[in-house]
């Protein structure tokens, strides 16, 4: 257990500046400022409707799919404004991948699922695709379980396997950042543990941002925890600090379960 009470700000991967987000008249995120360091796991926690998922979806512009949304402020990935007009959204989403709450494999074969991202990116070389698929499946520890049935439908996988497949599918496109929206909330405890260990391994190569309802999960795996409440960022601190001596009274209340 490394004791770490200061955020290491040497290498900032993602930076959110003065972000406001409106769904119609609903002011869902208010003046958010947060910096997300590279190769660390940053967790967003807070009660339902606090805006944590909305913020996550801003980071790879998945919010673009929602109509009636207005976003002001700036988000930069590697110092490039992702809401810039010149920004190619498909490129951005390859760089900033996303794993969802429910395992959502395509109704295609296991192989085709992992190959999807690279194929649509225009890679046609069969050998290259094979290699990437194999490496991605190995990276998530799924290769041994599926190597003999790559052509089977991905729908035949268990929930935990399907979620690892989704992670493999995301890393196949070589992202820098992986966003995770409650990635284990639909899984049983054992699968959850497997995914958590996987996330811990992933941080060596990727910057991970995870939204979770499960405070213990944030505690177990994240380096930095940010607490959101009613669309505001209440506190960002190293996870150890947040869970032992939070600075803000609201954070303390939430973490000790004395909310509301």
């Amino acid at each position, binding site marked *: *257990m490394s*004791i770490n009470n200061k955020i290491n700000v040497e290498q900032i991967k993602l930076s959110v500046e003065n972000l406001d987000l409106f769904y119609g008249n609903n002011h869902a995120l208010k003046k958010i400022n947060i910096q997300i360091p590279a190769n660390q796991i940053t967790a967003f926690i807070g009660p339902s409707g606090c805006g944590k998922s909305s913020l996550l979806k801003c980071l790879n512009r998945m919010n673009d799919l929602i109509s009636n949304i207005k976003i002001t402020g700036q988000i930069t990935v590697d110092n490039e404004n992702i809401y810039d007009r010149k920004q190619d959204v498909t490129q951005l989403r390859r760089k900033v991948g996303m794993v969802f709450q429910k395992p959502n494999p395509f109704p295609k074969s296991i192989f085709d699922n992992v190959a999807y991202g690279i194929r649509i990116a225009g890679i046609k070389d069969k050998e290259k695709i094979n290699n990437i698929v194999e490496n991605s499946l190995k990276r998530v520890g799924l290769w041994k379980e599926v190597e003999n049935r790559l052509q089977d439908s991905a729908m035949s996988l268990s929930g935990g396997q399907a979620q690892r497949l989704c992670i493999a599918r995301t890393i196949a496109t070589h992202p820098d950042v992986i966003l995770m929206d409650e990635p284990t909330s639909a899984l049983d405890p054992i699968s959850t543990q497997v995914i958590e260990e996987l996330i811990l391994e992933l941080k060596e190569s990727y910057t991970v941002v995870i939204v979770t309802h499960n405070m*213990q999960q944030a*505690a*177990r*795996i994240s380096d930095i925890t940010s607490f959101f409440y009613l669309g505001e960022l209440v506190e960002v601190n190293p996870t150890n600090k947040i869970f032992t001596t939070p600075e803000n009274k609201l954070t303390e209340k939430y973490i000790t379960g004395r909310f509301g």
Partner: protein
Amino acid sequence: MLKVEKSVLELRKTLEEMTDIVISIVDTIRTCIKKENFETLEFVFQQDRHIDDLEKKIDQQAVALLALINPMASDLRFVFSVVKLNSDLERIGDECKNVAKELKTLEPPIPEDLKILADKVYEMVKDAVNALLNQNSALAQEIILKDDEVDKLEYSIQKKYSNSIGIAFAAKALERIADHTTNISENVVFATEGIDIRHENSIMNRLGKSDK
């Protein structure tokens, strides 16, 4: 390796740093008494600061582990026992300082009884640390039994040398070190077997309870 295993391992590493120092200072005390040569006693005082820092570090790590990892069952008992025996280790350091202070007031020759006592206490500390790091409950139980011998020996020294405050105090401090090793041992038994053997009337009762 699981995150909980990694974190417990890190805690163990800090703990080992601590026990290494504790053994080395108890060893210094023993050698000084045996050789009736107090030149190296300064080492005991030098290490004090170090031990204090490590005590804090162990507590911080343990709290973080409890807060973030939520260890369960054997992991939980281990962390809990470490929190408790941590202060015993630090107190052993303090008692060593007390012995050293008293020794400085003494002139050789040192009574044979005190040498035996120092030897016994050193063995107990070594065994307790051994039991702790290997989570060896049987060894921990042996140490608890040995505590009576030390008590008797110390009592006889107190009687024999009631005129020499230095010797009496040193003996008393050594006896306290033995008490701390008993506490450590009790915690080892708790960590390994989950049985609380404190505050039982007789030693046999205590160990009888720990007989599964």
